[in-house]
């Protein structure tokens, strides 16, 4: 054995051991299981909290409203499109965080006149159409044509 190796082999051994020890502490658990990322992160992304409950959840209690909605032009709308996220209310019906928007601008998000959505939806000019009243005084949002 050449004499140089006597000093080099232990030196290399120390470097490699240090590298492996550092790597053990620095590379997170599950990194590389499925690719160049921490695989547990997929599960963490799945665990995030839902805010929107879905129309079926609303219908469990409010079946009368759902039935009314299904007969009109707004049949394809989800309850939460207008009433906001409902998961908290679904899990605890005592809560009152459900919104009931009644401002003209809210209806106008879809129904104010804009040539870009012409022919796609019923539209009015918010500045001219019955300006002193709220939309819902004449139009029932759950069945707009009644």
């Amino acid at each position: 054995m050449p004499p140089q190796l006597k000093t080099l082999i232990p030196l290399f051994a120390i470097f490699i051991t240090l590298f492996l020890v550092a790597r053990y502490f620095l590379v997170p658990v599950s990194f590389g299981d499925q690719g160049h990322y921490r695989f547990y992160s997929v599960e963490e992304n799945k665990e995030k909290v839902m805010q929107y409950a879905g129309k079926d959840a609303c219908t469990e209690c409010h079946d009368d409203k759902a039935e009314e909605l299904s007969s009109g032009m707004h049949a394809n709308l989800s309850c939460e499109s207008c009433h906001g996220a409902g998961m908290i209310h679904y899990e605890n019906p005592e809560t009152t965080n459900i919104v009931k928007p009644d401002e003209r601008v809210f209806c106008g998000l879809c129904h104010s006149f804009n040539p870009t959505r012409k022919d796609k939806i019923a539209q009015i000019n918010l500045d001219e159409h019955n300006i002193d009243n709220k939309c819902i005084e004449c139009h029932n949002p759950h069945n707009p044509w009644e």
Partner: protein
Amino acid sequence: MGISNKEQSRRRFIKSAAVAAGGLLATSLINPFNAVLFAMDKPEDPTKPWWGYAIDISKCIGCGRCANACKTENNVPREPFYFRTWIEQYTILNDGTVKVESPNGGMDGFKQPVAEEDIFKSFFVPKMCNHCSKSPCVQVCPVGATYETPDGVVLVDETYCIGCRYCVQACPYGCRYIHPEKNVVDKCTLCYHRISKGKTTACIEVCPTQARILGDLNDKNGPLVKFLKEHNCLVLKPHLNTGSKLYYNELSQEVG
């Protein structure tokens, strides 16, 4: 006696001409590239879902409920310029100029400042992460903090991201932002916490016109593949070869 210089250059010319002709013939045999089918064919495991998404521009009315619901569902900062999904209003004037607007991402509704008679064509384009199967953002991440899941969703590992902003630069669709409080990158997760539990995404849940469609590209009889078969869909920036899985029906070439 050697070969003359003239003879050699003639040989070289014939050789390179033959290579060029052969090359042309070979490339003509390669199938034409189809960006829509490219990402569909990618999944390695056909037993798992391979998530894709479609947006029907002809149905979008620009109400902005999707952008609003996305912020609620995913705790996206409420102030403007932080969006996982937003809507753009494209207006092509009679003289050919193209106007693009997205006031507050479309969440407060749209006004059309151009008079109706001056408009050649106008439409709304909802934008979001394309969940590319060859994501440029994933390729540039120096630490492996963003990745494509086995079912085809591009996600971020918040605990591992160093906030270097390289992926924000790399995304050709502008779909990433740096979260102002967490100082890590944030993007559309395709509501991974919802779709993995059998629910649909928040934006689809609230869309009043069903302009958005989520589906499994592996399910050849599913709603998304059916939609792609029945409509003339395109992806954004197909020349970048990103393998985008966000398909648009009635996409105009003005949209970038």
